[in-house]
């Protein structure tokens, strides 16, 4: 599904700042991978580079989604190809209704894939059902995108978008940050409902807690722009108990 090989990147405005320094990662269809790592290790940057945010210069390596070269595509093309990033900080867009935003996105992707666009009525039916599961009320659908939403509402709104867009590769960037226990359960349930054999997840998190709800197949530890250790769910527990210090020391030894 997602194949990243020896990826290097630096800041576009400051080539002295190297962030990814040879990152490799392969996620097969249906798998859930988690990436953990200390602050500043490049986890969020990885999600930005994969989704096509400006400001980063890829200086080496490759990233493909089902053999299509992600790095060669515009952000909207990556989305249409099936990549989805749930933002750590979902963006507020005053003046654009949440519903309009989602319908425009769904139909733009359908159009890009040569599928027929959904009518307003069809869309409404689907979005209402999915919103209900995530306990998103009609008012949140009507309001401008993320404007006046609480932290938890913003994250639920991200998962709603994911559910509507039905991507095949989902990246969750610290989706647990700012969530209380109940909200985390709600968001996790939403994610778990989307798990299937054809869909993969990359879950970026600081805490093992989220992984109690979204059970990963593989856990990676990232440090200084590289994966330094890969293992099963037990690796996340080890981090929870001992922190990163031992793992970092081991990697540097």
């Amino acid at each position, binding site marked *: 599904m997602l194949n990243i090989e020896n990826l290097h990147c630096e800041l576009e405005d400051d080539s002295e700042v190297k962030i990814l320094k040879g990152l490799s990662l392969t996620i097969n269809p249906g798998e859930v991978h988690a990436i953990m790592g200390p602050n500043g290790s490049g986890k969020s940057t990885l999600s930005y580079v994969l989704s096509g945010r400006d400001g980063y210069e890829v200086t080496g390596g490759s990233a493909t989604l089902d053999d299509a070269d992600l790095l060669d595509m515009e952000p*909207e093309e990556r989305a249409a190809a099936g990549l989805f990033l749930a933002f750590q900080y979902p963006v507020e867009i005053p003046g654009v209704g949440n519903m309009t935003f989602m319908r425009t*996105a769904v139909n733009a992707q359908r159009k*890009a894939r040569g599928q027929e666009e959904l009518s307003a009525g069809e869309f409404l039916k689907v979005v209402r059902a999915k919103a209900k599961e995530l306990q998103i009320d009609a008012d949140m659908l009507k309001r401008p995108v993320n404007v006046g939403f609480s932290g938890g509402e913003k994250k639920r709104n991200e998962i709603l978008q994911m559910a509507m867009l039905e991507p095949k590769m989902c990246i969750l960037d610290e989706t647990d940050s700012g969530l209380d226990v109940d909200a985390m359960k709600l968001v996790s349930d939403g994610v778990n409902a989307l798990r299937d054999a054809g869909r993969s997840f990359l879950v970026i998190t600081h805490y093992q807690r989220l992984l109690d709800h979204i059970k990963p197949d593989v856990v990676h530890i990232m440090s200084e722009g590289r994966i330094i250790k890969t293992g099963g769910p037990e690796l996340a527990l080890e981090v929870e108990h001992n922190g990163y210090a031992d793992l970092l020391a081991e990697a540097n030894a």
Partner: protein
Amino acid sequence: MMPRAKLKAQKQARAAELARPLPTGGAWVTKAREGALARWSDMGAPLKRDEYWKFTDPRSLIDAGAPDADLLDMGGEAPVFDSFDRLKLVFTDGVFDPAASDALALDGVEIELLQDAAKADLHWARDLFGALEARGQSPVDRPLASFNTAYATQGVLIRVTATPAKPISLIYQRSDTGADAMLHHVIRVEAGAEVTVLENGPLAARSNTVIEAELAEGATLHHIRSQGRDHARLGAAHIFAQLGAAAQLKSFTLTVNGALTRNEAQVWLDGADGSAHLAGASVGDGAFHADDTVFVAHNAPGCESRQVYKKVLRHGAVGVFQGKILVDRLAQKTDGYQISQALLLDEDAQFLAKPELEIYADDVKCSHGSTSGEIDATQLYYMRARGIPENEAKMLLVLAFLAEALDEIADLDLAGDLRDRLEAWLQRHK
């Protein structure tokens, strides 16, 4: 800097050059015109050196001879408001066109044409015509409005005694590429009545329009104006509105294209608990200069006013906003808000703003803000990351930017029509 007296002399000399014999009419109209001509002669013509014209050169508005402005090919697109049920009053090249207009009859409304009424004794029109314009000459001179009062022979006089069933729609169309046109409308809304007055279309290659509106106690006027899309047109428009207690004014202007547009508004909140909302959306690409100059005077307690102006500019287009809220010492509990914002789509576009507050009461809530910026990169990325193509995402963001001004229109269907026009314009100017 030029001494004030010398500047004044220059302005007066220019005004004298432009003066011509007054049109003929009935006694009260002639009296009003003589007064206006005296004001024009005394104030003098506007010059670029006037502080009030610092950002907009008035020369092309008063030079001899209108420019040649090609008629816009609408390509089969219906004019704004076309699908709405309304009383249609059509002006072709600035002259009332009875064949194209509806009969001047609408329940709850008296409608007269300026050219006819000038011969009749209409006390309500007589008391207003030129009177609000004269009041509007302080604290700043608005000589173009006096010039209009003196020389305009076309326009409508509307008296609303009870809320009519449909809007009154002033439709402007052109057949002449190089004509001047001057219209002077008077609107009196009696106590408790509510009316919607629409204006749309290109008036002339060069136009000078004045609206004088008086709103009695509890009266409401919705004024929605869409200025024609002809590229080379020049225009100056004034609205003078005097509001009684609990009266409400909502005036919105859409300015699309046009080489030079100066829209002035002067509102007096004279009675307690009045409300005035003035809003404008302008979009310009290339040779475009749109100036909104707005003055709201709070003269009574408990009034509320909003000024919401949004401009989208590109390829050298220039936007100007001069806005002032003046709060008299009697106007306690005033709630005043003013925002002017420009979205600059490239580095050639320019926005010049002069927001002002002048407050003499101590218990008021007033805020103002002015910003200019570009499309938010983070919002754009977020939308693209969801699969929305860049151009479409930009258009949604531009429309969202303009939405706050459009939201000032009470009628959602009329607002929707204007929004569609803006969207079509943005599609054409991707």
